[in-house]
């Protein structure tokens, strides 16, 4: 992960240099040309099955609009590398899909054409979309990219293992204490109660729920605040839970990732976003559902969202916007929702059977929508990807190697704060 980010940063730095020389970001063609739609390139981060969903989306768009799209589906590990290199060399795709935690460096370097005015020209009414991802993709007061999904962190739980252990299924608004007790009760010789990745996106909801904060200011963060009382208490809660032996050991985590351990009944619960659903659906005999996150003091969850951005150097911005308007519209979002991996950002599709149908697991997909009023997002700032890496590496030391929490929090301050201050 660190290597990928480092490569992304390297490409990003080169991108800055080249875009400064070429002066491309200023040369937007704002006048629409009344000719047949141009062929545009769309780069998405997708594994092979996900790529199939985007191919369906593209062919539906081509049929509906007569436009032409070259879809470049790149694996998760290579998306940022290819994107950064492409921008640096002036060969950027017209449209690209990116997570809100990763788009700020691209905006800061002038690589993104704000999508708001472009979509207005296409007549897209943004009133029908959930607010939180629109906010997360606004930077410098303008909507930079158009969100396609609004996922959040939930608890995946194995119904069969709950039944076997005689543990009551998770209720809406269950507490951290109930969650920890369930994890303990589910832990047997073969099974661990719960698995939690040591990352800030997993920890953030609990920190917010206990009244803490990750950084001093969501808008203009200058330092991390994980060592302060609220945040520290939440992290201590996780360390205590790990101390009860209800979570997989370091060796177990090295052998199989949490999703695979969940598939094989080695963990009874794990925390993740909507992204796990297609893989879990394919496991014959796995009886699973999702539940809301446990609450420490007040409900909270963390936004997971990707959006379509238009490259500032694109010669076909209007055609790019036309594709985006289709992809985030009723038909486009229905196609991606049926793929199972996304929670639609368009309210009318999110509340339709395409997403909520109880006939396909998880039966309680409504949980993702119930979390929306309590969603918050991590800071949108150019150095955030590096800050996330620092926090993740340090939390891993505390969660898996038993390094004292205060030592780890001190290290986070020492390494992450200078990054936030731009040094």
């Amino acid at each position, binding site marked *: 992960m660190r290597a990928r980010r480092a490569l992304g940063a390297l*490409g990003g730095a080169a991108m800055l240099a080249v875009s400064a020389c070429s002066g491309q970001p200023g040369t937007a063609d704002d006048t629409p040309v009344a000719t047949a739609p141009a062929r545009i390139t769309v780069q998405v981060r997708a*594994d092979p099955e996900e790529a199939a969903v985007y191919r369906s989306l593209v062919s539906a768009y081509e049929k509906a609009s007569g436009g032409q799209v070259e879809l470049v589906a790149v694996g998760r590990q290579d998306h940022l590398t290819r994107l950064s290199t492409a921008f*640096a060399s002036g060969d950027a795709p017209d449209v690209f899909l990116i997570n809100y935690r990763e788009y700020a460096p691209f905006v800061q370097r002038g690589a993104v054409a704000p999508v708001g005015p472009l979509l207005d020209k296409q007549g897209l009414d943004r009133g029908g979309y959930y607010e939180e991802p629109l906010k997360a993709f606004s930077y410098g007061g303008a909507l930079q990219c158009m969100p396609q999904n609004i996922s959040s962190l939930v608890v995946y739980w194995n119904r069969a293992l709950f039944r076997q252990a005689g543990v009551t299924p998770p209720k809406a608004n269950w507490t951290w204490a109930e969650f920890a007790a369930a994890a303990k009760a589910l832990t047997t010789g073969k099974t661990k109660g719960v698995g939690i990745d040591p990352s800030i996106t997993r920890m953030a909801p609990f920190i917010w729920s206990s009244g803490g904060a990750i950084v001093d200011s969501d808008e203009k963060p200058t330092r991390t605040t994980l060592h302060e009382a609220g945040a520290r208490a939440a992290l201590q809660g996780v360390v205590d839970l790990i101390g009860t032996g209800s979570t997989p050991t370091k060796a177990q985590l090295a052998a199989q990732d949490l999703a695979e351990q969940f598939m094989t009944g080695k963990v009874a619960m794990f925390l993740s976003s909507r992204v796990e659903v297609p*893989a879990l659906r394919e496991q014959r005999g796995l009886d699973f559902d999702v539940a809301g996150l446990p609450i420490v003091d007040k409900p909270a969850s963390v936004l997971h969202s990707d959006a379509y951005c238009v490259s500032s150097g694109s010669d076909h911005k209007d055609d790019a916007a036309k594709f985006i308007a289709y992809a985030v519209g009723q038909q486009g979002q229905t196609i991606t929702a049926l793929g199972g991996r996304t929670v639609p950002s368009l309210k009318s599709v999110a509340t339709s059977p395409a997403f909520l149908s109880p006939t396909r697991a998880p039966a309680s997909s409504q949980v993702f929508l119930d979390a929306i009023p309590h969603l918050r997002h991590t800071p949108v700032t150019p150095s955030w990807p590096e800050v996330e890496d620092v926090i993740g590496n340090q939390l891993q030391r505390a969660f898996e190697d038993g390094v004292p929490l205060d030592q780890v929090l001190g290290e986070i301050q020492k390494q992450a704060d200078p990054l936030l201050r731009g040094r």
Partner: protein
Amino acid sequence: MVALSALFLAPLVVMLLGSLQRPLQPPPDGLDLWPNPVEWSNYSAVARFMPLTRLLLNSLLLVVVAVPVTVVVTSMAGLAIVTARGPVRRLLIGLSVLMLLVPAAALWVPRVVLLRGLGVADTPLTVALLALAGTTPFYVLLFALAYSRIPGSLLEAATLEGLSPYAVWRQIAIPLARPAVVAVAALAGLFYWSTFMDPLTLVSSPANWPVALGLRSLSEMEAALYPIYLAAAVIVTAPALIAFCIGQRSFFSTVERA
């Protein structure tokens, strides 16, 4: 020797057996080797996830073009180093070693800018253009090392006889450095068959990608579909293995003769 060979064959055997497992099963506990039942259909399923024939042809084209070019360029450059005098020779060797130290990632952006400027950034043969620069200075040094065993007087005598530099290379140097030719051809062949980072950054259209990059994207398949990924891995590895089996006889006989 046999035990050592078995050790190196083990990953291939695991890959082959894994490719015959039934997909959509829970991930096994430990190493579940023996497929039961044997699932040959995984091989036909690969084409559903990537345009296999197209990508294999792209890779084949890449290797067929890039390997001979690499051998010619690096063998000539190696000869230039060996025939250069004192300080120039040291400078050229130093330069080659210095170039070896440049991290690959630092070259991605300049390469894309250059190739895009030349209008050749999106063909199946784009990556083969690296061969014009010898692919890697390591091959140049390998040739320089091989040529350094040829007596200097022989090369000088050939020049005094009026042979052009090309004729010296073609008639004297190459025949005497046959093991190096075979070694560089084998290494370059393997490099162009398996490279995925260069095409990822250099080649725009997925239709022009080589098969190694297609395999790379399959590696992110869900665990339940891993047998299909391993089937793809067998298909991609097979041509390289067959080439090795055919080539090893001539490689060892050349080395032994040398």
